[in-house]
């Protein structure tokens, strides 16, 4: 899970950092709306 994602403020974060330490459901959507 090395994907680099963009926060809404434009900062970036690695997906791996988001999913560590707590059980997580990740939803990848086709598009918003």
């Amino acid at each position: 899970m090395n994907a680099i994602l963009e926060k809404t403020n434009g900062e970036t974060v690695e997906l791996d950092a988001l999913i560590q330490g707590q059980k997580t459901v990740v939803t990848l959507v086709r598009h918003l709306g």
Partner: protein
Amino acid sequence: MRERYEELEQFGYKLIVIAPHKGSFVQEFLNQFGDYPFPFYGDPDKQAYDEVGTKTMPKGKLLMKSLKGMLKGTVSNVIPKDNGQKDVVMKSMKSEDVSIQGATLILDEKGKMTFSHLDESPEDRVNVDQLFDVLKQQS
């Protein structure tokens, strides 16, 4: 899921949503559709989609589905009536490869995947009830 997020938290889970857009566009979406109790992230290069191996629906098949939906009147129902929301949805659909399909993953606290569903089509996604069924089985 917005309405049942507390239930998800009771299972000890958090939720993150990844969309194939720039982070700034995700913010535009949130400005129109309101706050959610879980975070959204943009993945404009579709790195997560590639890593997970999400599927794509052939454009011809997608076109046929759209035409059928227009004839049945179901496609117009997915376009919001509110002008601001409608603009965001239309921009979202026009700016992205709509053949890309979604996915739902469940990960333990170490990041190990305990469930994955790769959507075959827009209708093939895991709905909220199905998600909770899986979480109940895993708990």
